[in-house]
């Protein structure tokens, strides 16, 4: 079952009244949606509020979601509309007048934008998370690190990774899991002790 089909299953569960399924979708897409919205709303606190608002709007609109497009495409449209409405209500113009492209939104490189408006506290927490992940990755055995990078950065399927690494699919599955778990193990103390459990 593909990633999109898993999303569809989660959506159908939400449509049957399962709020936990929506939690899983929020955990999965919050940073992507946040990145998208920060292109419109430059203040990080405002962008955070707009991202939450977009998720709530998506939740309310889910009964009408028919699965004709991928869930994330639909969610991003809601995110863009919420951001534009937010700017309109504050009588500000959206930073782009051209129609927005979802693919472009996923790959945009505008790192400076968020740093400019982040609070020092948020920036420090972000930096700690990034440092722990990158340090943990460096400590991993080569085969675990490669498997995880091929999956997360290159977006290869397990079968493709098995072909690249010349090993069975089951081994790929195990390597990716062990890599994630090793990194998560180092990350957990930070996630659980952050102020207000904000990670």
């Amino acid at each position, binding site marked *: *079952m*593909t*990633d*999109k*089909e*898993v999303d569809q299953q*989660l*959506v159908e*569960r939400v*449509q*049957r*009244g*399962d*709020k*936990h399924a929506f*939690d*899983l979708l*929020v*955990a999965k897409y*919050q*940073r*992507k949606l*946040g*990145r998208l919205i920060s292109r419109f709303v430059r203040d990080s606190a405002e962008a*955070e509020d707009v991202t*939450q608002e977009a998720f*709530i709007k998506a*939740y309310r609109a*889910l*009964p*009408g*979601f*028919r*699965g004709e497009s991928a869930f994330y495409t639909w969610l991003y449209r809601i995110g863009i509309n919420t951001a534009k409405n937010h700017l309109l209500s504050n009588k500000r113009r959206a930073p782009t007048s051209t129609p927005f492209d979802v693919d472009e939104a996923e790959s945009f490189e505008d790192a400076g934008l*968020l740093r400019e408006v*982040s609070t020092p506290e*948020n920036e420090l*927490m972000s930096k700690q*998370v990034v440092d722990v*992940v*990158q340090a943990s*990755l460096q400590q991993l055995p080569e085969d675990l690190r490669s498997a*995880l*990078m091929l*999956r*997360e*950065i290159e977006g290869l*399927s*397990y079968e493709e990774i098995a072909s690249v690494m010349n090993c069975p699919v089951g081994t790929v*599955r195990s390597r990716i*899991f062990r890599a*994630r778990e090793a*990194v*998560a193990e180092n*990350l957990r103390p930070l*996630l659980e002790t*952050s102020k207000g*459990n*904000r*990670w």
Partner: protein
Amino acid sequence: MKQEISALMDGELFEDEVGYFLDRLKQDPAARKNWAAYHLIGDVLRQPEHIHCDLSAKVRERMHDEPTVFAPRGHAAKQKMRAFALSAAASLSAIGVVAWMSLQIGPEAAPQLAMQQNAMRPVNAHIQGKTNDYLRAHQEFSPGTNMSGSAYFIRTVSYGADEIQMRNNPGKQ
């Protein structure tokens, strides 16, 4: 369980496993934390400069005030039903066509053909006797009468009266 969560988020579980592990995620808050942590790791690896704090708790808080959504049966479910009904109808029509075709060349077809031949050319009793001997001798090579598909390969042969006489008395030419 953790390994399955890892495979689930990559879309690498089998369809029948997905429902089971989504149920487990629903019941187990620790499993949901692992789901969130694994996604955070992926996001950090892809775009380390765009990591912000976790919004899940805040969204969850706001969702407490939201009424639980229930989609009326009719969107995804109706589409699935429509697809199922169409495929079922297509299968039934295919079965119907195959059944009709098999009836056309069914066991009745061969006797009808034979009867027609008999009506057109009455067979001499003497020849019939010889033919019967021949058929009896080669019975083991003949296809079963219930193999209607073989009717296509069977060809009826008849001899003219002169030819029969010549065959019976080869010396009288």
